[in-house]
Each structure stands twice: as C-alpha cells, then as structure tokens.
C-alpha cells in the first residue's frame, strides 16, 4: 500500500510537477478554446448546407459527414501531421490539430445541428417568410436559435467529448495536459503526474458530466 501511494499519489512529486502540469492545463484550455468554435463553425456550415433540397448537395454531404464520423480522429490527426509533410504541406502540430478537429468534430456538430433544424416545425419557417424575412434571416433568427435549444444536451455532450479529445494532441507532441504529464513522469520516474493530470481532468469536467446526466435522463424520458 505504501509503495502504491508512493508511486501514484506522491504529494512531493505533485508539487515538483505542478509547474509543468499547469503549463499543460493552460494549453489544454487554449486548445479547447480553439477547436470547439472551429468544430461548431464546421457544424453550422454542414447543417445549413444539409437544408438545401438538391440531391447533388445532400448525398455528397452525407458521405462527407459519415466519412469523418467513421475515421478515428487520431488516424486523421496522424495523417495530417505525419503524412501531409511528404506532400510538401507541413502545417505543424497546432495546424494539424486545428484541421483535424475542424473535420472530425465539425461532422458531429453538423449531425446534431441538422437534427435540431429538422426538429423546428415547418410552420415556423413559413411564418417567418410570410413576414418578409429572407431565407438567410429566417435561418439565423428563427430556425437556428430554436434548433440549438432543442438539441442543447447533445451539443454540450459533444463539447465535453471534444475537450476530452484534445488529449490526443499529445501524440503529435503538442504540450497539452497529458503530454506534459508524460514529460513529468519521465523526469520523475513516477506515475503521480499522470494521476494528477487525471484528477485535473476530472475536476474540470465532472460538473459538465453531472449536468449532462440530468439533461439526458429527461430527454430520453420525453421521447416516449
């Protein structure tokens, strides 16, 4: 037990490693602040495009979305980071993460927002158009606000997943929380920094998980 505590919950090591972890936490937050808006922007583009009736838009769009939902995000990231330079395109770790998340999480946000848009009754659009709003204005002021409200739990849930997913940036040596914890581990020869990073993630995300489990329970119940 003593060995276990020394190896996993060593307070002295936590103190030593804290500056390194703190840098990592800041990067994780910065990363999240970058990729969440990127993903949402991608999602809005996809969702709005999906309202176009033409099959020439609809089907390619569906293939696009399903492709990026089928491809594990880490595969995409490594392709962008380690593959593209061979074609003379080197966008670096941050660039690879930005593009990868835009494509991957954009597809998920897109699906959620599309479901939200479809949940807004047709009468809403007709009413808005009857008052002279353009289709763009109708989308922006009437449809999207209601769509977002209808799928809010899914949006929050996806955002939680996106923030968790930023940990894969450690694989391309971007110094976020997990990467920094691994660095600290290799310096201290002790697993405590990784445990500490896990605790930081948990403290950061637990409130969101609690909120979600309430919202989801209500949502599933109302589907009956």
């Amino acid at each position: 037990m003593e060995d276990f505590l020394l190896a996993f919950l060593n307070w002295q090591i936590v103190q030593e490693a804290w500056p390194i972890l703190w840098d990592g936490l800041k990067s994780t937050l910065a990363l999240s602040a970058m990729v969440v808006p990127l993903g949402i922007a991608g999602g809005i583009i996809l969702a709005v495009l999906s309202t176009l009736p033409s099959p020439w838009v609809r089907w390619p769009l569906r293939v696009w979305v399903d492709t990026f939902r089928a491809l594990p995000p880490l595969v995409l990231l490594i392709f962008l980071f380690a593959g593209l330079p061979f074609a003379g395109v080197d966008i670096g770790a941050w660039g690879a993460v930005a593009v990868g998340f835009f494509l991957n999480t954009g597809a998920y946000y897109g699906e959620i927002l599309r479901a939200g848009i479809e949940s807004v009754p047709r009468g809403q659009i007709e009413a808005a158009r009857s008052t002279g709003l353009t289709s763009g204005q109708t989308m922006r002021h009437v449809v999207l606000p209601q769509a977002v409200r209808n799928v809010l739990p899914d949006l929050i849930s996806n955002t939680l997943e996106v923030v968790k997913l930023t940990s894969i940036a450690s694989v391309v040596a971007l110094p976020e929380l997990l990467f920094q914890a691994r660095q600290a581990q290799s310096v201290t020869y002790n697993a405590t920094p990784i445990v500490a990073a896990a605790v930081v993630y948990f403290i950061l995300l637990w409130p969101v998980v609690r909120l979600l489990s309430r919202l989801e329970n209500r949502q599933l119940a109302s589907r009956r």
Partner: protein
Amino acid sequence: MTGWERFTDSFFNARVMEQYLPKIIEGFGLTVILALLIIVAGLAAGLLLALLRAFAIRPLNWLIIFTVDLFRALPPLVIIVLLFFGLPSAGMELSGFASTWLALALVLMAFSEEIFWAGITSVPKGQWEAARSTGLGFVATLRDVVLPQALRLTIPPLTNRTIAITKGTALASVVAVQDILGAAHGAVSHSYNPSPLTMGAIAYLILFFPVVVLGRWIETRFAWKR
C-alpha cells in the same frame, strides 16, 4: 515529377502498399478483435451496473454514479496511458492491448450504464404497478416488463455511443499495439512513405463506414413514433 505524380507517389505508392498490405491486414484483425472484446465487456458491465442501480441501495448507487461519472469525465487516452505507463511503477503490468481493452471497456460501461438507466427510469410507474398488482415480483417485473421496453428505447443512443467509443481502438497505437494505426504508422517510418497511412485510413473506412451508416438507419428505424 509533376505535382500530381509526386502526390500519388507519396500517398498511393503501389510498391510500398503491396509491401505493407499484410501488416495492415494483421492490424485490421487485431482492431476487430479489440473492438469486439470492448463491446462485449463494456455493454455487459454497463447493463449489470444499471440493473444493480434499480435495486436502489443507497451507498451502492453512490458508488455506481461516481464510477460512471469518473469514466465519462476522463479522456480515454488518459486512462490508457495511466494503465499502461502508470501501473508498472506500482509493480503491476498490463500489455498495451489489455490496457486499451480495459480502458475503453470501462468507458463504454460508464456510458452504457447511463443510457440503460435512463431507459429503465423512463418506463412509466404504471407499468411497474400493473405488473406488481398481478403478483409479479421485483425481478420478474424488471426482466419481463420494464427491461424489454427500456432496451428498445436505448438502442439508438447506445449504437451511436458504442461506435464512437469503439473507434477509440486507434488509441492503442499510442501504447505500441500493432493495430491498424499502429501498423500503418510504423510502416511509414520504415518506408519513409505515407502510403501505409492511406491504407490505414481506407481500412478504418472499410471497418467503420458501414457501421456508421447502420447507426443512422437504426436511429430512424427505432425512432419512437407514438
């Protein structure tokens, strides 16, 4: 070389592809096995926890809720790294394969417990009362009346969540498992050519594209129209 030739030589290099195809196929098999083991263990454990929770034993339920929250809040890669790089310093060792399996099975357990539980609680109280009034016991009511209704409701969210978590098998490459991504990434450094990554991406699409389409179909098929 023109730009196009350079592009195909990099990403669709026939010689490299041929050489590493067997490795990718091996990786494919490993990914499939890992995914199936995760699904079986994760869903079974999740259902078990949800059923235990139905008995409403206070301290046990707090423990279940905390466990579920924990594995919903932690990034899967953090759990994998913790198991693989952390446990050895406590004198325990798990292979990369076992670490990934355990981590993702725990994550799927957490998410599926939450979904199963939401399904169980969404069955109206009247169903319990009607069954109990005919003399059915708690367990029989849960098994024959409540669970069949709950499961139907949970199929769409469960399918999508299972697909999302199963895709996480690619994380195994981080802990040196020669799954599709592991094999492909390794081959890139050997051959100094990214074509194996192209193959890897195609392999993942072959594996998961049909599943994603299936998930979409299930979502419409099981939509609760009443």
